[in-house]
C-alpha cells in the first residue's frame, strides 16, 4: 500500500531530523511514502485563533490535493500520513467539522469550487505511529530490528496526537508508542506525563509558562530514571530539547535529557546509520552506544 506524505512546515525546518528518520525507516520497511505535491500549511493553532473556517479551508485544500494525487487503499480511502501532531489534529478537526457542520461545509466548498478544487471526503489522515503499529505491524518491525536498543525510554505522546479527534489509541493513557518501543528492545517507563501539554509555541511567546511546562515533563522523566524521551511531535521536540538550556537556567535544573523522535529510535534499532536519521542534528546527543543496548 502506498502512503501520501504531508510534511507540514516544521518537518522542513526545526523538525528536519523527524523527516529524515521517517523516510529512512519507511524505506527500510519497504513502505512507499510519496510527498503531497504543493501542500500548504495546515494552519496549526494560530490560524484557528484568527479565523477558524479559513483554517479548515487550508486543510481542505491539502485533502483535495491528496484525493487527486493518491491511490485509494482497500477501504477506498487515500492514506495521508501527517507526522506533526498539530497538522494531524488540525486536519482531523477540519474533516470532522466539514462532515458535521453544514454551514462550515458550504463556506469551504464555495472556496474550493472558486479555486477549481473538490473534496469528496475520501482521504484518511494517519499518524505514522498509527501506521507503524496498526498497518505495518509490530511483528514486521521486530523482524527488522538488528540491534535492540535497551534504553529506558519515557514515551511522550503530547496532547494533540490523542485528543480529541484522533482515530487510534486511548485519550488518557495511550500505549501505541510504548508497544513500539518494546518491539525495538527499549524499556518504556511508567510515568504520568505521557499526554501532558508541553505548551507548544509558548516557549517563544509566554516564555515563563512555556519553560515551566517543559520543565515539568523533563524533570519527571529525569526522576523516573529515563535515558531519553521519545516524541511524536516536532513542536514537543523543539520545546523539550532546544529549550533545555533555557529550562535549566530558569529552574536551576541539571537536566540533560536527549529527546529523540520515535522514528530515530526505530531507525537506530534497524541499524540505519546515525547521519541518515538526523541524529547529528540533536542539541542533546543521543547515541545508542552511550546508553548501552
Amino acid at each position, binding site marked *: 500500500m502506498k502512503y501520501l506524505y504531508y510534511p507540514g*512546515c516544521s518537518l522542513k*525546518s*526545526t523538525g*528536519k*531530523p523527524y523527516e529524515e528518520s521517517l523516510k529512512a525507516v519507511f524505506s527500510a520497511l519497504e513502505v512507499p511514502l510519496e510527498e503531497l505535491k*504543493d*501542500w*500548504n*500549511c495546515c*494552519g496549526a*493553532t*494560530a*490560524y*484557528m*485563533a*484568527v*479565523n*477558524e*473556517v479559513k483554517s479548515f*479551508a*487550508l486543510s481542505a*485544500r491539502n485533502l483535495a490535493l491528496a484525493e487527486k494525487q493518491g491511490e485509494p487503499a482497500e477501504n477506498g480511502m487515500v492514506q495521508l500520513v501527517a507526522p506533526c501532531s498539530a497538522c494531524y489534529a488540525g486536519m482531523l478537526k477540519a474533516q470532522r467539522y466539514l462532515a458535521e*457542520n453544514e*454551514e*462550515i461545509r458550504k*463556506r469551504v466548498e*464555495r*472556496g474550493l*469550487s*472558486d*479555486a477549481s*478544487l473538490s473534496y469528496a471526503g475520501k482521504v484518511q489522515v494517519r499518524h505514522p505511529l498509527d501506521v507503524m503499529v496498526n498497518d505495518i505491524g509490530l511483528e514486521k518491525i521486530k523482524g527488522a530490528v538488528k540491534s535492540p536498543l535497551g534504553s529506558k525510554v519515557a514515551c511522550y505522546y503530547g*496532547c*494533540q496526537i490523542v*485528543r*480529541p479527534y484522533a482515530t487510534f489509541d486511548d*485519550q488518557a493513557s495511550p500505549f501505541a508508542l510504548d508497544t513500539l518501543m518494546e518491539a525495538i528492545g527499549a524499556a518504556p517507563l511508567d510515568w504520568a506525563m505521557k499526554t501532558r*501539554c508541553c*505548551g*507548544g*509555541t*509558548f516557549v*517563544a*511567546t*509566554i516564555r515563563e*509558562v512555556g519553560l*515551566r*511546562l517543559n*520543565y*515539568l515533563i523533563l*524533570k519527571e522523566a529525569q526522576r523516573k530514571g529515563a535515558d531519553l524521551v521519545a516524541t511524536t511531535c516536532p513542536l514537543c521536540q523543539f520545546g523539550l530539547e*532546544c529549550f533545555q*538550556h*533555557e529550562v535549566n537556567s*530558569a*529552574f*536551576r535544573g541539571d537536566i540533560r535529557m536527549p529527546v529523540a523522535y520515535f522514528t530515530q529510535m526505530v531507525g537506530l534499532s534497524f541499524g540505519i546509520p546515525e547521519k541518515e536519521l538526523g541524529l*547529528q*542534528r*540533536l542539541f542533546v546527543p543521543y547515541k545508542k552506544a552511550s546508553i548501552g543496548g
Partner: protein
Amino acid sequence: MRSPTPAPYSPSGAAERPSLLYEVRKVLKYESELNPEFGREVARKAHGENLFACIQCGTCSGTCPVSHYMDYAPRRIIAMVREGFEDEVLTSSTIWLCASCYQCTVDCPKQIKLTDIMYALKQIAIAKHLYPKKFAVPIMAEEFYRGVAKNGRNNEGMMMVNIARKTSLLNLFKYSRLGMKLFTTGRVALRQEGIEHKEQLRTLLRGVERAEEEAR
C-alpha cells in the same frame, strides 16, 4: 514572638510565581452593565457550542495544565461568558494561555468543547484588538495568519524574528544562542518557502470570505 516570614510560593524549587500579564481584578457589576447577548454570540461563534449546559463542576479548571497562570480559570470563564461579563472575558489572560491541548474538551462531563469556545473568544478579541500591546500570543497568531495567506507556508525562523521585532528586540538577543544552534545543526530554513499555486490558495480563502460575508 514574631513568626518567621513565610517563604515565597515556590513550586518545585522554581522562581516565585510571576505576575504575568494582568493583575487579577475584582469588580462588582450591576446586571445592567452586563451584555446578555454575549453568551449567545460566543456560542454561535463556537459553532452552536452549548456552554449553557455547563454544570460548573470545575473539571476543566482542574485538568487544565495552565489554569494556575490564568486570571480566571476555565470554569469561571464559562460562567462569566454566559452571564455577559464581556469586557473581563475578552481582556483576560485566560484565552491566550489556552494552548489548545484539548484536555478539558476530552474530560468535560457535559461534552462542552471548551477549546472551541476559547478559540471563539480569541477570534473576537483579535477582531476587536482587545489585547495588550506587544503581547506575543495574538501577534504570533496574526503573523502566522498573514504569512500563510501570502506564501502558503510558514517559515518558523522568519516568524520568530518578526515576533521579536513586534514585541521586544530583547527577545532577538535572548534567542540568538538558540538561533545559532539551529543554524549549525541545519534545522532552520533560510529561504522563504512558498507553494507553487499561491493564487489558487488566495482564491480559496477569498471564496470562504465571500461566503461568510453573504451569510451575514
